Each structure stands twice: as structure tokens, then as C-alpha cells.
């Protein structure tokens, strides 16, 4: 087997001291992806595993003024059960609740979801819609902060460097304001299955129904996770209408085709993107069915 060493740590500084060395160190926390890779033998040889599941500083969910900060090692069950998250960012609450099974949510972490950056990662579309910021720290203990949209650089690729640890993810709370959100995850059965696609939407409207803000993010649609800024622009400043919603949805479809081309799954995914977006936007923007 590929693991040479297994190191159990309890503080961020201990983790950082393990990184940046010569032998390749991999961070393990909940293990819900890593143990599968280990079984498949796809982890590589002579690996040092650094287990951060006991680093308390990385597990906190805190509110700091208007900002919510979630430690990278916070497990999905904690996020799903957190009243702070349910109040500040209901879409993230739903996304965390939709992850795997109760057993997987006991172990799987938000940091793991972000760093693995799978197409079907459940929390990433929600975090993109929440305009989340990623905080990283390197072995010199210097901190780097960047928007999640910049952090996610490609299919299963992120901007994390060899000596960096993902510390937390942070976003402004939407509590008490005009914001509304929706999270819809499409799977092949009723529960506990890999997401086929997921849709995270956030909106704000004024009293007249003019769209002040709209954020659209769709999981398993683009090869690199990201928002649909062009489509968002089409709605902002306009009164929501069936026609406007449909055009927005079509714009999203065009962006998918532009970025990924026509693929084997497009015959299904493209019409679903359009129809689910229409459905979700109609409900979110309180339009009559």
C-alpha cells in the first residue's frame, strides 16, 4: 500500500509543519473520498497522511459581524445542524443536508468538498452563489484569501499549493435582508446518491419586483465550477417575467455549450438546465405558475 506514515495532529501549526517537506504529504480529514482512493490504489506511493480531524480550530462555525466563517474541518452534519447556517445561508444548509447519508455527513467536511472539487460536489454551487472567500495558510503561516470562484481552477483542480492548508470558507450572511435562495439537487433516486446536477440560486428583489441581485450556480454543468454572470446580468434591474426568466435560462445553456461543447450527456443536461432554472426562478422570484 501507498501510505508510509500516518500523522495525527491537533493544531494548525502542527499541520503546517508537516507540509512543504520533501515526502508528499496529503491531508486527510473525514476520509470519505480519501479512503476510496486508498482502496482503488489511486493515492500514489510513499504518501504521508496528515490527519486533521482532531484540529478543533478548524471545526468552528462562527459569525463575525456580517460574515459567517466555517472551518475547513467542520463536518456536514454540523453545518446542516447549525442554526447559524440555517439563518444566514439556507442554501448551504440544504446543500450540506443533501450530502450522502447521515454516516457520510458525520465524517465528510466542507474543506474536503471544496479541495476535492468534484463536479458533483454538493456545497460548491451554494458557496459560489454566496460569494464565499477561501482562506489558506502556508507553512510559513502566511495567509492568503481569494474568492472561491478563483480558487476552483478546473475539473478536480484548485489553486491550493503544496505547502498550503485550507483554513476556512467565509461569506456574508444573508439573514434578515431581502435575499432569498433556493437549492435543488437532482439525483437518480430519493436520497443518498451522487448529484446528477445541482442548482444554487440567490435573489433579491425590490417591492416592485425589480430584480436587484441574482446569483446562479449549477453543479455538474461546467467543466470548471463557476457562476453564470452573463445570465445574471440579463435579469438584474429588470422586473421578473416569464419571458425574462426563459431568456436567462437559455443564456445559461449557451454558456454551458460554449464552455464544455456538446458532450454525450448534453442531450439530457441542456434541456434540464433550462427547465429547472425556469422552474426555480419562477418560484424564487414569486411568479405565478
Amino acid at each position: 500500500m501507498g501510505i508510509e506514515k500516518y500523522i495525527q495532529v491537533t493544531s494548525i501549526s502542527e499541520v503546517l509543519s508537516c507540509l512543504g517537506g520533501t515526502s508528499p504529504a496529503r491531508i486527510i480529514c473525514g476520509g470519505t473520498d480519501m479512503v476510496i482512493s486508498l482502496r482503488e490504489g489511486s493515492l500514489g506511493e510513499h504518501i504521508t497522511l496528515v490527519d486533521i480531524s482532531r484540529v478543533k480550530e478548524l471545526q468552528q462555525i462562527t459569525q463575525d459581524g456580517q460574515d459567517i466563517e466555517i472551518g475547513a474541518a467542520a463536518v456536514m452534519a454540523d453545518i446542516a445542524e447549525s442554526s447559524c447556517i440555517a439563518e444566514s445561508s439556507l442554501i448551504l444548509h440544504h446543500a450540506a443536508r443533501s450530502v450522502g447519508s447521515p454516516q457520510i455527513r458525520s465524517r465528510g467536511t466542507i474543506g474536503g468538498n471544496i479541495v476535492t472539487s468534484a463536479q458533483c460536489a454538493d456545497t460548491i454551487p451554494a458557496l459560489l452563489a454566496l460569494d464565499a472567500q477561501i482562506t489558506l495558510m502556508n507553512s510559513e503561516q502566511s495567509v492568503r484569501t481569494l474568492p472561491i470562484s478563483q480558487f476552483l481552477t478546473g475539473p478536480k483542480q484548485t489553486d491550493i499549493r503544496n505547502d498550503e492548508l485550507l483554513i476556512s470558507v467565509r461569506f456574508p450572511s444573508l439573514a434578515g435582508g431581502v435575499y432569498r435562495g433556493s437549492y435543488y439537487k437532482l439525483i437518480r433516486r430519493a436520497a443518498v446518491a451522487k448529484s446528477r446536477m445541482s442548482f444554487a440560486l440567490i435573489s433579491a428583489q425590490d417591492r416592485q419586483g425589480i430584480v436587484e441581485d441574482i446569483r446562479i450556480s449549477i453543479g455538474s454543468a461546467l467543466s470548471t465550477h463557476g457562476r453564470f454572470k452573463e445570465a445574471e446580468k440579463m435579469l438584474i434591474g429588470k422586473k421578473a417575467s416569464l419571458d425574462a426568466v426563459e431568456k436567462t435560462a437559455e443564456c445559461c445553456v449557451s454558456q454551458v455549450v460554449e464552455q464544455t461543447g456538446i458532450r454525450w450527456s448534453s442531450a439530457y443536461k441542456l434541456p434540464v438546465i433550462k427547465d429547472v432554472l425556469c422552474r426555480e426562478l419562477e418560484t424564487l422570484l414569486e411568479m405565478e405558475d
Partner: protein
Amino acid sequence: MEHKENKTAVSMTVNGKHIQAEVLPETRLLDVLREELHLLGTKEGCSIGECGACTVLMNGRTVNACMVLAGSADGAEIMTIEGVCGPEGELHPIQQAFIDAGAVHCGFCTPGMIISTLSLLMKNPQPKDDQIQEALSGNLCRCTGYHQIFKAVRLASERMHRKE
């Protein structure tokens, strides 16, 4: 087991007993339970965290023992199906309810199912039907179609509530 240099010692509390084991980095909690401690009630069905047959309680939460490395469980409190019975081997109300409701067919998913039920009823002694379904959604059963299992959980909840 062949000897390897990189074995480390882990200790944990399993069903109230303190235990120690020498493990390789890739040894899973499931292997410690089944192969080292001979606690064979915890089953292996898929090895990828999908079926829930290996469900145990770890620090009060349900986990798939096939997805937890033994090192991660160092210092943890673990409960397996063998720890569910009373000290004299008497059945827990959940176990009795599974028998009474006909929720046991082949029995392979049953230990995991009972652990998930235990976890649910500890947190939520009188769950609603949808909460029961949600709490057991990570435990696959191919025999029953689940309805008798739901009935067992309701029965256990009623009996445990009446007792209090």
C-alpha cells in the same frame, strides 16, 4: 499479519472497554473491529460507504466503519451491535422491536440498521415518519422494502417512551 515497520498503536473505547491495537496506516476501523477484536456483528457490504452494513457509533455519531481509518479512531468511543445488549445479554428495546415488527429478514443489514436507530432515538426519542426515513437513509436493506423497519423504529420509540 505480516510485520511491517510502519505500524502504530491506537487505543479506543469499544463498547465501554478500553482496547489497544497495532495497525497499519491503511487499516480501517472495520478491520480493527472484525479482525483484531473479533466483533463480527459489524458487516462489510460494499467497502465504499454506500450500504451502511458497517455502521457503528463513533463519539455518538453514526459512521461507516469501512470509511474510517483506524488512526482516525484513535482515542474515540465506539459502539457496535455487540454493545447494544444489556450487561446480562438482555435485548435492548430496539432489538426486541426489530424482532416483534418482523423487521429482520436476512439479518445482514440489521446490526447497522439498529445502530442508526439507536443514534436517532438518542437524539430524537419520538421521531416522525419522515425523520425515521431520513435517519435510516444510509442503511440499505434489500429484503424488507423498509416498511417493517419503520414499524420497528416506531414501536421501539413508543416502548422506550413509555418506560421513561
